[in-house]
């Protein structure tokens, strides 16, 4: 049973000390060749789960396997066959781009030339900075180099822990395009991110919060599961707006969403009623428009339910 999934997690729990329950009976599985996203805010347990799968931490209870290998018993097998990119930049800052890549290729018993095809598209962007020290690269370049180093031995499964945190918007988009291409080459990818908008770029996602998985599905299905009518509201006083909207009788939930507040309603959409309510509360510059639900709306919804 377990062997048919690239990653199989069953009832994994992990505590730090007595107080903090980082993972609470988590179960999920990732198909071979899938691009799977772990979506959740900071402190949700994403890093802990990835570290357990990368054999860096031992779970307190539960079973997990990567490519059929048990994370506890067969850790050596896993370490030779997966790529891991930690959340913090973890290459040698005082080594050049080329030296870093050469080092990681060699410790995995391969050469840059042997698997160059896999990293070519990424590496060509780094080529002009070949002799530059890794510590002097920009944030986006660092992540590309780290990805190259994690890929150089042609891993079966790739673990990426928040690869786009602290990276500019353009580099983020490029990074995701790279992941899509890697998926087409048959590599299973487990990626974590706190950015909800990146969820739609995954094939399936797990929404994770406080060590529990709230939902596992395709992004489309998760969004479709949001059944409440939704309005985007905006006034001149956004801070007061959220509190006031929560007073509104048919409000299901109200929370900030970029420049707007998203208002989920229990009844049918009736923007005029909302408008009148806000005007009554002395709001100015009122703007109300229907909104399409996103992963973030589903996430907030699931959070209030649990």
């Amino acid at each position, binding site marked *: 049973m377990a062997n048919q999934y690239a990653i199989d997690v069953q009832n994994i729990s992990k505590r730090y000390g007595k107080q903090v329950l980082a993972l609470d009976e988590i179960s999920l599985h990732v198909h071979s060749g899938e691009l799977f996203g772990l979506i959740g805010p900071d402190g949700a347990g994403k890093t802990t789960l990835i*570290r357990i799968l*990368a*054999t*860096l*931490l*031992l779970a307190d209870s539960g079973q997990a396997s990567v490519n059929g290998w048990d994370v506890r018993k067969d*850790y*050596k097998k896993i*370490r*030779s066959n*997966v790529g*891991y990119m*930690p959340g*913090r*930049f*973890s*290459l*040698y*800052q*005082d*080594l050049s781009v080329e*030296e870093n890549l*050469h*080092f*990681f290729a*060699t*410790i*995995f*018993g391969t050469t840059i030339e042997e698997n160059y095809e896999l990293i070519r598209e990424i590496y060509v962007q780094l080529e002009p900075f070949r002799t530059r020290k890794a510590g002097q690269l920009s944030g986006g370049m660092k992540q590309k180099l780290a990805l190259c*180093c*994690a890929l150089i031995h042609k891993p079966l499964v790739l673990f990426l822990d928040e690869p786009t945190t602290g990276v500019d918007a353009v580099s983020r988009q490029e990074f995701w395009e790279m992941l899509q291409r890697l998926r087409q080459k048959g590599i299973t990818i487990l990626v974590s991110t706190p950015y909800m908008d990146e969820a739609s770029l995954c094939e399936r996602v797990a929404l994770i919060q406080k060590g529990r998985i709230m939902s596992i599905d395709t992004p489309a299905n998760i969004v479709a599961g949001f059944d409440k009518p939704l309005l985007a509201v905006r006034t001149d006083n956004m801070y007061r707006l959220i509190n006031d909207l929560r007073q509104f009788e048919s409000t299901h939930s109200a929370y900030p969403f970029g420049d707007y507040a998203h208002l989920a309603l229990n009844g049918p959409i009736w923007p005029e009623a909302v408008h009148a309510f806000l005007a009554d509360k002395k709001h100015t510059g009122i703007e109300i428009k229907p909104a399409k639900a996103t992963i973030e709306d589903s996430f907030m919804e699931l959070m209030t339910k649990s």
Partner: protein
Amino acid sequence: MKQLLIFIRKETYHIFRDKRTLLILLGMPMVQVLIFGFAITNEITNARIAILDQSKGEMSQDIIQRLVASSYFEIDENLRAVSDIERHFRQGKTKMVVVFPPQLQENLLRSVPTQIQLVADATDPNTATTLINYASAIIGRYLQEQNQGNAPPLEISTDVKMLYNPRLKSVYMFVPGVITIILMLMSAMMTSIAITREKELGTMEVLLVSPLRPSTIVVGKVIPYILLALAMAAIVLLLGAFVFGMPIRGSLLLLMVECVLFVITSLSLGILISTRTETQQVAMLISLMALMLPTILLSGFIFPIESMPKVLQVISNIIPAKWFIIIIKNVMLRGTGFNFIWKETLILLGMALFFIGASIRNFKIRLA
């Protein structure tokens, strides 16, 4: 094998690209040798003494000349009366007063027992004892020479011969000790931060998720530092030889080989500390504090092991520095060959292997 080589290469890059640390690592032994060398010495030169010459004869003048000629003493003042002695000491000007009795010359020529009084300021007992010893020796030798013509008086005299260090120079004692301590501390410190640095920078995470074996990492971290530590050893030996006139009577090759062995022992001790600590600061503190005191106190560097209580004598056996001091004293001062120090060499080798083995065993293959 390829993995080990690339790992060593990586470590070498770390060492040579961090110019400031490299400079400190090579500069510190120099400063330490000079500080230790000039500070730890119980030799006295040009101590100021006063003379109260009541005999005013030829002999007392001869003795005074001898005292001055030894360069240990310098005459500060000639006193006139016994009552001046107390006043003079209170002024703190002199360390010792030599009092010649009125009938010195007559008594000596007639072989009547007579006394020359040495009065020393014993607020600093070590200095006082040393001064008295020096002065007694000089006066004794003079009287012996005077006696040679005449029929020797009936007395037993001891003939002391100091082997290997005839002038009892203290450099001979401290240079081997300083070399040992510096090699030990610097080596242990360098490697103690080597693994913790990777933990702190997060690079340990990626190293762990790779096929690298703990033994490769441990050995790969020790090897590049051997050369660096040897450079330190060379600096310290050269300073010892040229600044403090320390001889190297035995084979230089043997000395260097023993240095390599000791350095490897210390480096592996550092690695062991590194595998047990989480941050560079803690590692550095442990390697400094926990190693420095036992090494200085129990290695026989300053305090002779033979005069320690039994318990400490037993404990001193686990201090690598103790064995190395025995080795280099033998090679440098006695000029002995390997056949006299093979036992100590084997003990050091055993310790090195034990530390490396313990480091590999202790190496954490996971994060927590």
